[in-house]
């Protein structure tokens, strides 16, 4: 367990800079998820922390000690790879005990620690098997066991669930979370799946193009995204984002695409201001007297109803928890609560409303 600090980290591959002065403070025992689209630099940042890539400039401090120029083995970290990276010619027990063996631990200690980790991860019956004899989920647990056995200061996870099927992914998500509660070790977890980020993290770091877009708790990012990118990235289905101007009465919104939206009360911006307006699909409701819309597509998920609507030429997605009997082509009226609206500057795309 240790705090981890990344100070102004940059990384260039030849002439291409992929990380631009990233600074993140991670508290002792915190579960931090780095999330962002492909190519945003999240895996590169994780590899910098692990020491698998050399940092171009800046620093990485684990427990207050600058480790940015140390060999991976000297950083006291453990990493779970996307491919699991289990040694195919070693049994589960040998895989899990390998780091102890390399440190010169006695075989008694190796056996004891491997046994403990196997107990935590329910791997006792599999210790003599080889990785090829295991299922995807079991391999994933062995990879975690290998990390646990080391008792490192920081755990690093590089998209560890992306090779698993949807059901197993959900199960492993809660297993990793439970494991974190038990071990209380600092975790840095990389994923491109915002659901994983929302459900697992104490703190989420949203990245784009080698920059940090926002750092905060899952609900902070959900309730108050710092910019249009975060607003569109966090939440599923994604937030509806519409370009336009605040109407003269501040209660309507004139869309750039044509037409206008009516809100239940005044929007928190000055009339005539050019903005990007965001509203989450789950905040849109049906009413008798609101903005007229046409149902374009209905997608029932079982628990919810996802409805794609045409509102004055713009697409809006709504999520209804009730089982509504809607039909494609049906005319409806939408209630858009002003207090659920997120406003962003049209130029800078940064958040306007509090």
């Amino acid at each position, binding site marked *: 367990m240790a705090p981890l600090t990344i100070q102004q980290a940059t990384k260039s591959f030849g002439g291409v800079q992929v990380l631009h002065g990233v600074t993140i403070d991670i508290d002792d025992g915190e579960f931090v998820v780095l999330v962002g689209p492909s190519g945003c630099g999240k895996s590169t940042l994780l590899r910098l922390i692990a020491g698998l890539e050399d940092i171009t400039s800046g620093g990485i401090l684990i427990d207050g000690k600058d480790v940015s120029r140390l060999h991976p083995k000297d950083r006291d970290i453990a*990493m779970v790879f996307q491919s699991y*990276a289990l*040694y195919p*010619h070693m049994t589960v027990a040998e895989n899990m005990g390998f780091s102890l063996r*390399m440190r010169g631990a006695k075989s008694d200690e190796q056996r004891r620690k491997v046994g403990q980790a196997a107990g935590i991860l329910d791997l006792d019956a599999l210790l003599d098997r080889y990785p090829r004899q295991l299922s995807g989920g079991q391999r994933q647990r062995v990879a975690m066991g*290998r990390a646990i056995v080391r008792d490192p200061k920081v755990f690093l996870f590089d998209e560890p669930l992306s090779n698993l099927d949807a059901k197993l992914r959900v199960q492993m998500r809660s297993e990793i979370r439970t494991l974190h509660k038990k071990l209380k070790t600092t975790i840095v977890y990389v994923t491109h799946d915002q659901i994983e980020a929302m459900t697992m993290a104490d703190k989420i770091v949203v990245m784009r193009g080698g920059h940090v877009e926002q750092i905060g708790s899952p609900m902070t990012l959900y309730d108050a995204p710092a910019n249009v990118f975060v607003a569109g990235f966090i939440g599923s289905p994604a937030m509806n984002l519409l370009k336009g101007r605040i109407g003269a009465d501040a209660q309507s919104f004139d869309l750039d695409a044509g037409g206008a939206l009516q809100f239940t009360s005044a929007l928190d911006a000055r009339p005539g201001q050019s903005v990007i307006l965001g509203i989450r699909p789950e905040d849109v409701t049906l009413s008798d007297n609101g903005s007229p819309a046409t149902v374009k597509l209905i997608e029932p998920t079982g628990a919810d109803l996802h409805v794609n609507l045409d509102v004055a030429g713009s697409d809006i997605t709504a999520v209804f928890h009730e089982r509504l009997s809607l039909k494609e082509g049906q005319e409806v009226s939408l209630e858009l609560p002003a207090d659920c609206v997120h406003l962003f500057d049209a130029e800078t795309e940064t958040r306007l409303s509090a």
Partner: protein
Amino acid sequence: MSAQSYPGRRRTTWVIFIALCVFTFINLTPLIWAVLTSLKDPRDAFTIPPTIIFEPTLKYHIEVWTENDFVFYLMNSLIISAGTVFISVPAGSLAAYALSRIPRRSAGPILSALFTIRMFPHMLLAIPFFVMGTFLNMIDTYPLLILALVAINQPFTIWLMHGFFLEIPRDLDEAAAIDGCSNWQAFRIVILPLARPGMTVAALFSLLLSYNEFLFALILTGTDTKTLPVAIASFGGEDISSWSLSAAGAIGIMLPIVLVMLLLQRHLVRGLTAGAVKG
């Protein structure tokens, strides 16, 4: 999906089987001929039509193994082959591993250069080796022929092993580094055991090349280090009466290599096909 009917498929299988039998027979004919010749009296060896029924004799096999310094030449061949394998495979594997782990744009030109060396006629390489050997006073010594054979064998070993190392995910190197391995330990403990099928193939090819090599052995060896292929060539000469002896020598030279191949053929087949499909 195949549109071929079951009887059609069965007919195709039979045609392929017969074609393979014919092919195998054509390939084995010289060998069968050599075996028969080695068991015949020289007078029966070249009769037309060939003598099918004859009284087999092991006289020439015994003569090969007990006279003519056959065992001495065999030992030379084995020492030189073993030396070549023991230097060529580790050196080639290390080079191949390094090439598989550096950026492709750096490895590409080196691999291409190695390929060019492989294409180079060996005859043209033999002359510089002879000149260097003479200059260093190493003609007719084991190290000279071993080094020469290692040199001509390296491109193949490196190319072969490079392919094997490329298939071993780099994540394993990185996991080993995080688990506490130095680069050398990661190679020795994690990567090398996984490359064993490739190394077996590389060792076998290296062994075959050095054991059967004639040109370099002819030019770089003398009375002390003459190898079997060079010695066998001088067994019979043009004297037809010695052809049974030559044939017995040819069988003798093949025996060690056939034994090795039989013992390791499982690894050979697996090694040559390993990684052909994604596992």
